[in-house]
């Protein structure tokens, strides 16, 4: 029996032929309501430290959304997202703190800069095969590491620099929204950004641009033959992903208020890989779930390092009892996640969800076949 897929664009498709089926509009209103409740209700319910962690999850989700577009849709495997995040972070930290640029101008600048750099990277990438691209992206991380350490006047070098720029636009301070603490405000700001970008990513997926990218991912030559300008779409995917990354960088700097080159190194790149592998790389929801789960888990361990079982397993300093130095734990955890998830469900949580849906759809088909068969026998 051929697999039945739910097409995002085919209006005639019904994934489950159940009679009591909500119409599309009601479902969408419901979804919007849920999202709104989560966005505005969460700050009221959780303590500041949890909200801070969740805000960082948002930043990682944002960076991962760039990868959803670049790798998930267009199939370009690049690990260099932290480079663009770093560019966004350092640009906003420097201009925001030293020259007092306001946050709106910084946002525009950072997005444009990220886009331009991404397009340049794309120009190079279009001539490269998959493996060459992966290696060039590693090179870009190495180069970023050098740049962020070396350009001391702007970045502060190894010791990093302050990123405590003001978040005021007009009279509104984004870090102090009316009636909210700093953590609450930043939670709302970051997750609003994620929401907007996720909606854009979803739109792309359902529309001509996304289809073109997915065609390129699957069969570049055939895509060319349909009339898709492969080069242009690859460059566009790079530009968009990098612009999103740069925006994530600005938010990261605003949250942490201090950035160092270690924030954008290979470990971070692999953390992003773990996020998209766990969550699923080809849907925006995967980026969000992955960030919440992976970054959330890492944060949870960090904050429980003094209690069981982690105080026994991890050693915080030379001579402390424990199997593994705490600094190595993140490395170990991300590596292990990659291995386990790739062996078990390479498409991540989203893939699990899709498999479950297909299972359910095939039950319906089986039930229908049985019913038809029964009808035949009695007629």
């Amino acid at each position: 029996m051929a697999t039945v897929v739910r097409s995002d664009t085919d209006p005639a498709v019904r994934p489950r032929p159940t009679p009591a089926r909500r119409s599309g509009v009601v479902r969408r209103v419901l979804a919007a309501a849920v999202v709104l409740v989560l966005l505005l209700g969460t700050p009221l319910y959780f303590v500041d430290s949890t909200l801070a962690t969740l805000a960082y999850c948002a930043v990682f989700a944002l960076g991962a959304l760039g990868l959803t577009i670049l790798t998930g849709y267009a199939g370009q495997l690049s690990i260099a997202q932290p480079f663009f995040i770093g560019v966004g972070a350092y640009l906003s930290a420097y201009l925001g703190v030293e020259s007092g640029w306001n946050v709106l101008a910084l946002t525009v600048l950072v997005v444009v800069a990220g886009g331009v750099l991404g397009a340049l990277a794309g120009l190079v990438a279009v001539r490269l095969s998959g493996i060459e691209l992966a290696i060039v992206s590693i090179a870009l991380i190495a180069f970023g590491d050098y740049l962020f350490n070396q350009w001391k006047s702007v970045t502060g070098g190894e010791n990093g620099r302050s990123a405590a720029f003001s978040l005021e636009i007009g009279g509104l301070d984004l870090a102090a929204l009316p009636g909210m603490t700093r953590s609450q405000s930043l939670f709302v700001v970051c997750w609003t950004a994620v929401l907007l970008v996720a909606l854009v990513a979803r739109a792309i997926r359902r529309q001509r641009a996304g289809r073109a990218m997915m065609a390129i991912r699957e069969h570049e030559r055939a895509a060319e033959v349909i009339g898709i300008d492969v080069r242009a779409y690859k460059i566009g995917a790079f530009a968009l992903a990098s612009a999103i990354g740069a925006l994530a960088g600005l938010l990261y700097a605003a949250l942490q208020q201090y950035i160092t080159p270690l924030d954008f190194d290979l470990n971070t790149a692999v953390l992003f890989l773990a996020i998209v592998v766990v969550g699923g790389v080809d849907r925006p929801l995967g980026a969000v779930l992955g960030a919440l789960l992976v970054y959330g888990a890492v944060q949870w361990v960090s904050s429980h390092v003094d209690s069981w079982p982690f105080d026994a397993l991890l050693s915080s300093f030379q001579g402390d009892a424990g199997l593994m130095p705490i600094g190595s734990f993140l490395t170990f955890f991300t590596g292990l996640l990659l291995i386990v998830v790739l062996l078990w469900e390479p498409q991540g949580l989203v893939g699990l969800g899709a498999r479950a849906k297909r299972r359910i759809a095939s039950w319906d088909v089986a039930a229908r076949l049985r019913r038809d068969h029964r009808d035949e026998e009695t007629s």
Partner: protein
Amino acid sequence: MTDVLQTLVSGVAVGGAYAIVALGFVIVFSATGILNLAQGAFVLVGAYLTLQLGARWGLPFGVALLGSMVLCAVLAVLVERLLLRRLSPRDHGAAVLLTIGVLFVSEAVVESIWGVEAQRLGDPWGLDTVTVLDVAVAESDLWTCLICGVLIVATFLGLQRTRAGLAVRATASDQEAAIAQGIDPRMVMTMTFAAAGAVAAAAGTLLSTGSIGVSSALAATAFSALPAMVLGGTTSPGGAVVGGLLMGLVQQFTALLVPDVAPGLGARFAGVTPYLVLLLVLLIRPQGLFGRRAVARF
């Protein structure tokens, strides 16, 4: 003049190590299509195993090195058999990600067992120097050149003269045709991983001799060999060797010249030069120095 000769020798030494790591990358990639980033793990583990066998358990250095090479070959085969085999053979993206996972887990395990600080490897030549043409040259560099040279020659002989090597070359050239000839692609995969693991162990060990010592930063050094692989055209072993030597020389000479010529670039610049060279070459000649763009018949 002293500096130039010393740098030349150290350039060839580092380049030789890069070359054999790159060989490991190329052999696995050309036969299986997988970019095996776990190679960095084998480099790291190899160096530490030599440390353990030699400095900790007292075996002679040469024996420790050989023992480490054998153990790493076994480790590589385990990674291939237990982990990579479980993936779909055509899903190369997933394979790369999996090898990254192995790399990171290995790094953490190494740090857990042996600690984070750099340690002396315990090589017999240590900081000794030898006088060549009135210049004091580091003995470790000379030994590295020698051993890398031997391994490179051995690898090429293995590829060209043995049946196993023939099987690897056939699979690299056309997997379907090789299968039709009765060559088992999984056996080939195992052999290439074993070879990659062994040479990686040697490279890791040699890179840790002399003044540098062993530390988990070695894994990053393996990444520096990647440009050599692309420079050589990703599937050409000869290209990998030339690429590696070139990278090593560029890196060491840059380290020599930067403090006088362009001090603003900083001490870290030498480490980035392999990547800059890569970018430059790719912009001018996308197929690398030795690669050929395959014409895909459609």
